[in-house]
C-alpha cells in the first residue's frame, strides 16, 4: 500500500467523514457491537451473529455494521449502539438474541427505539 504523507492524513480524514457520515455515505443506520474482552465473554459474538442474520433476512443495503472495543459499562454487557441518520445514537444494554431481534425490527427497520432495553442516547463527552 502507498506510504502516506501528512496531506494524505487530512484527505483520509475528509473522505472518511464524507463516506461514513450517515445519509451522505449511503447508509441510513449504523449498528456498533461492543466487542472487548468482557463484551465477548458476556456473549457479544452471539449478538453480532444475530445482527448479521437479521441483516441477511432484511435484504437491506443501507445498514452499516461495525464493531468497537469496550463501551465502559462492563456489568451491562453485551452492549450495542444503534445510530439512525439525523438522530442521536442509542446504547442498548444486557442484550440477548431475542432482545437484539426486537431492536432490529423496531429500531433499525422501523425507526422506533426500544425504550425498555435502552440505557442512554447521545455521545459521551470527549475532551
Amino acid at each position, binding site marked *: *500500500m*502507498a*506510504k*502516506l*504523507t*501528512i496531506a494524505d*492524513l487530512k484527505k*483520509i*480524514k475528509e473522505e*472518511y*467523514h464524507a463516506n*461514513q457520515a450517515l445519509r451522505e455515505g449511503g447508509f441510513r443506520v449504523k449498528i*456498533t457491537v*461492543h466487542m*472487548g*474482552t*468482557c463484551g*465477548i465473554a458476556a456473549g457479544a459474538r452471539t449478538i453480532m451473529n444475530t445482527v448479521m442474520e437479521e441483516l441477511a433476512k432484511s435484504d437491506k443495503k443501507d445498514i452499516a455494521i*461495525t*464493531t*468497537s*472495543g*469496550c*463501551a*465502559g*459499562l*462492563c*456489568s*451491562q454487557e453485551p452492549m450495542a*449502539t444503534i445510530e439512525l441518520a439525523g438522530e*442521536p445514537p*442509542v*446504547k442498548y444494554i444486557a442484550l440477548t438474541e431475542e432482545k437484539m431481534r426486537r431492536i432490529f425490527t423496531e429500531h433499525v427497520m422501523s425507526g422506533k*427505539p426500544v*425504550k425498555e432495553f*435502552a*440505557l*442512554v*442516547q*447521545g*455521545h*459521551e*463527552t*470527549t*475532551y
Partner: protein
Amino acid sequence: METTYRSNIMICAGTGCVANGSLKVKDALETELIKRNLQKEVKIVLTGCNGFCAKGPVMVVYPEDIFYQLVKPEDVPHLVEEHFIKGRPVQKFLYTPPAQKDAIPVMNEIPFFKHQVLRALRNRSLIDAEKIEEYIARDGYMAAAKALTEMTPEQIVSEMKKSGLRGRGGAGFLTGLKWELCARVPGDIKYILCNGDEGDPGAFMDRSVMEADPHSVLEGMIIAAKAINAHYGYIYVRAEYPLAVHRLQLAIEQAKDRGLLGKDILGTGFDLDIEIYQGAGAFVCGEETALMASIEGKRGMPRAKPPFPAVKGLWMRPSVLNNVETFANVPPVILHGADWFASLGTEKSKGTKVFALSGALNNIGLVEVPMGIPLKTIIYDIGGGVKNNRKFKAVQMGGPSGGCIPASLIDTPVDYENINKTGAIMGSGGMVVMDETTCMPAMAKFFLEFTEDESCGKCVPCRVGNKTLLTILQRITSGEGREGDIELLLNLSQQIKDTSLCGLGQTSPNPVLTTIKYFRDEYEAHIKEHRCPARVCTPLVKFVVDKDKCKKCGQCFRACPTGALKWEKGQVAYIDPEKCTKCKSCIKACRFWSID
C-alpha cells in the same frame, strides 16, 4: 453600586430556542417584570445552547434551579404571577425527568456518563479498532505528524513537562522529565518501551485501550521516540490478553503498510520499528528493570537502581518505559497543547485518570474522570452505590501494592498526593469496592498470598519477609492469632518496606498496614475474641442463629443445600451442627446478620 437581584432567569438564546421564539419570550418577560415592578429584583440573562433544543424555548430560574420548557410569550404573565409573586413553580412548564416519561435519557442524565471526560479513552465506542482509517478520521496520527515535522525533541519534552502528565502506571513520575533524562544521554541506540503487563488484579484499563484503540498507543510511542531519538520499540503485553495482542499486531502491520511506522515515517526521514513482546506470566515484570530483563529472554528479576533505565536500560542502552494509558494520553497533549491538558485536574495531578471499577458496586466498568474528583462521586454517582443495599466498607486502590481506603475517607479527592496520604496508592487505577461482607484481615492475607507467590526471590526481605507476614495472617484468620501479632505485623512490614530491592517488596506490606490502620478492631476481634465480624473466616464462624436478630423469614432455610437448617413459618431458625457443612449459603442469604 451594582444591583443585587433576588432571582436570575437564564433564557436560552441558542439557535434552536431562538427559532422556537425564545427572544419573544424574553421581550414578554421584560414587559411583564416592569408591569409588576420586579425589574430590579429579577434579572434576565441570555445563555448559549444548553442542548435541550427539542424542548425550546427553555429557561432556568436561579437560585431555585428550576428548569422550564416549552414556554410561549402568552404564558409569561401567568408564569411571573405564580413564580415571582406567589413563589410557586408552575407545574405545567416544569421539565419532567425522563425516568417518569417515555423517553430514553441523554448522557447528562445518567450519572455513570455525566461525570466522565474521555481523553485517553477518546475513541471509545466510536471507532473500529481494526481499521486504521477510522483512527485517522478522529485526528489520528496528526499529533505524530506535528511532532515529526514542526517540533524539535526539546520542544516535545518541554510541552510534555509543561502539561504535567504523570505516569499512569503507578508511581506517577512526570512523563516529560523521564523523556528529558533519556534524551540527554548520548547514544546511537535507544529504546522506547510500552508496559502493557497490567498485572494488578482488578485493573483492566490498559487491556481496554490496547483492544479498543491500539493506534493511540503506537502514536504516543512515535512521539516519545522522536523526543528521545529512539528507532526501536517494544510493547510488552501480558499473555493473558490475546485479543489485545491480536489488535496491536494488526495495528502495527497497518501502520507499517501506510508508512506510519518503519523507515521514513510520513516522509519525514524518521525511522521507528515497534515489536510486540508477549509476557509469560509474572507480576514482577511490571517493574521496569524486571520487564527489561524479561525482554532480554531472562528470568524477570529486578536489579538495583541506579543506573536508571534512562541511562542503562534494555540491553544496557538508554531506554524509556511508559505505561499504555500514559502513551494514549500523549497525542492529544501534542495536538492541543500543554495548557489544554492542564486545564483539568488539580495542582499537581493534571488531566484525567481512567479507573477500573469492580467489586460490590452496581455499575462495574471503566471510567475516565478529571483528577481531583471526590472518591464519593466515583463510588456513589458513577458506580451507582453498593450493590444489594449493603453498607460501603472500603475501597481497595493500587492492588497488591496499594491499600484500603475506609468509608470515613470517602470525601478524599482522587489525585496522586491525596490517595498517597491515605496509605493507598493511585497505582494503575484499579478500584475494588468492598461491603460489610469482606473481612479485612482475610483481604490482607489474600494480597500477601499474591505477593508471596509473585516475589521473584532475589532479595531476602521480600522473599522471606512476605512469607512470614503471610504465616502470621494465616494464623490470625484461622483463629490461632496470638497477643502481639498486630505489633509483629507492623514491625515486620516496616522492615520489608525499608529494605526491599524493588517496588514490589517496598509496597507489598501496604495492604497489611492500611487494614491495620483503619480496621484494627477487626484484627483484635479475630485474635482476642476469636470472632470474624464479616463471617468470612470459616474456623471463626460458629454457625449459630442469634435468636434476637432472627426475623424468622426463612431465607436461610431455602438457601441451605444440606438440610441442616430447621425452620417453620413464624419460628426462629436453627442449624443442626451434625448436618452443617459450613458452606455459608445461609450467611449469604441472611439479610439481617443473624447467623454468627
